């Protein structure tokens, strides 16, 4: 499969999360686990610091969790100008019990009045778009 985000590659970070973005483009939400000791390894890295394994399994995880933290961005900075018309927009860090509390960032979809640490959220996957810089993206929304 050809992945769109490859053509828009963001060079920051350590670059161990390609499989994350590929999965999203395939319409699946997957996070990495050490293939040997089965520890969840998020954010993704190249080697398990606990057991030394270089292999990861990318397992489907339920997109359901709680807001660990959040911010309402009132200014679109240089490299996120694509969201200028959305200002103010809320970005959420969701904690996912399905992956031992891994925290996954995503913009908030829908009304933001109930946003607070601890509030339940559910995620869905957006295909690559200009707003997400040519990458697919996770969007969280508050569960009523």
């Amino acid at each position, binding site marked *: 499969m050809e992945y769109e*985000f490859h053509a828009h590659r*963001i*060079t*920051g*970070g*350590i670059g161990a*999360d390609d499989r994350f*973005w590929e999965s999203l483009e395939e319409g699946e939400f997957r996070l990495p686990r050490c293939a040997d000791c089965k520890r969840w390894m*998020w*954010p993704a890295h190249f080697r398990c610091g606990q057991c030394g394994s270089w292999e990861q399994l990318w397992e489907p995880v339920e997109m359901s969790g709680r807001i*660990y*933290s*959040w*911010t*309402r*961005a*009132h*200014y*679109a*900075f*240089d*490299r*996120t100008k694509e*969201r200028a018309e*959305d200002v*103010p*927009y809320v*970005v959420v*860090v969701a904690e996912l019990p399905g992956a031992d509390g*891994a*925290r*996954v*960032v*995503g*913009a908030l979809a829908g009304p933001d009045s109930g946003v*607070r*640490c*601890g509030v339940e959220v559910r995620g869905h996957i957006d295909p690559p778009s200009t*707003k*997400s*810089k040519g*990458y697919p*993206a*996770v969007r969280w929304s508050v569960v009523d």
Partner: protein
Amino acid sequence: MVNTMLRGTTAVVGVSDTPWYKRGTSGEPALKLALRAIVSAAEDAGIDPSEIDGFVSYGSERNDGQRMMPALGTKELRFGALVWTHGGGIPGALGLAALAIVTGQADVVAVYRAMSEYRGRRLRVDVAQDDTSPQHLVNGLDSPAQLCALRSMRLIEAEGVPARTLRDMALASYHHAKRNPRAIGRDTELDAETYEESRWVSEPYHLFDCSRENDAGSAVILVSADRAKDLRQKPAYLLGAPMGAAAGWGLREESGNPYWSAGFQGVADRLWADTGYGPGDVDVAQIYENMTGMGVSALIEHGFCTPASAGEFVTFDNLIAPNGGLPINTSGGNLAEGFIHGMSLVGEAVRQIRGTSTNQVPGATLSLMTGGPGDPVVSTALLADAAAL
């Protein structure tokens, strides 16, 4: 056990900042500003600039010693290094300079930082070094203000630290700036109402919670404690400057614990262990506040208060010179004096030991400077008068 190799064996003997310019208005490239700061820090120390044989900086500094040596008349460049990663590295840069001196690698080391948008990149981009993860950029997070906002939101909502502590840090900085004729924010009348009414940048941060880059250069000169005794200025001895990240930290993006941390878990403990002092002994502190909330986290992690007592400790009255329990950012700090990646906080920490701050804490003998909070690697330093050795 105190670290006898590093404790008090070197001293800062020269400090200087160029004037502060609104970004892009200095009319001089960063390298020239670095030269100006280094030359005048050497003059402040009474050392000829040609004697500087070590150059240490941090973050995205690109004005390395080799590029400046022709202009400094450098007799021999013997040591040069850059400390990772961003503003977290400043006190660590002092520590690295001290290591070079005590191991005989260099005799006179300049630690400095210069930034300019004149013929340079947008400072915001320069400081960020293009290493922001797609996990952030894809989701609308670019600025350190936004990334730090996430941590401070957790500090407020989950740890119960009052949002008012952020405001009081900002008020203290602007209060101090009024008496500092060099401060960019000296004429800004900031009170609680102006703060609350200022626009949001990224909640919980208002405009006045966030530092903004300036064109400027800032430098300090370190030598051995022996040599320091014979120089022009009262030495500010370096007692310790550990750098690091605790297990489970480093590049953890949003998964570090505690999430509200500024990164000083373990690092602050080592500062106290290395120096033989504790938070209760500190007379004055320059707390790197890229954003106020991260400064609050740094205070907590250095043991000045806990999340539960932060509301009592982090108050305007307690943070201002001369009589607060812990006067902080007495030059106006990154917020109100000017932001050159935090470097000018070192100079102010030294001036407090010399007794020459425009907001002097009477008899200050122990002066703390904490590095850029929220950086994956941070550092922190304690400077002292001879009486505290």
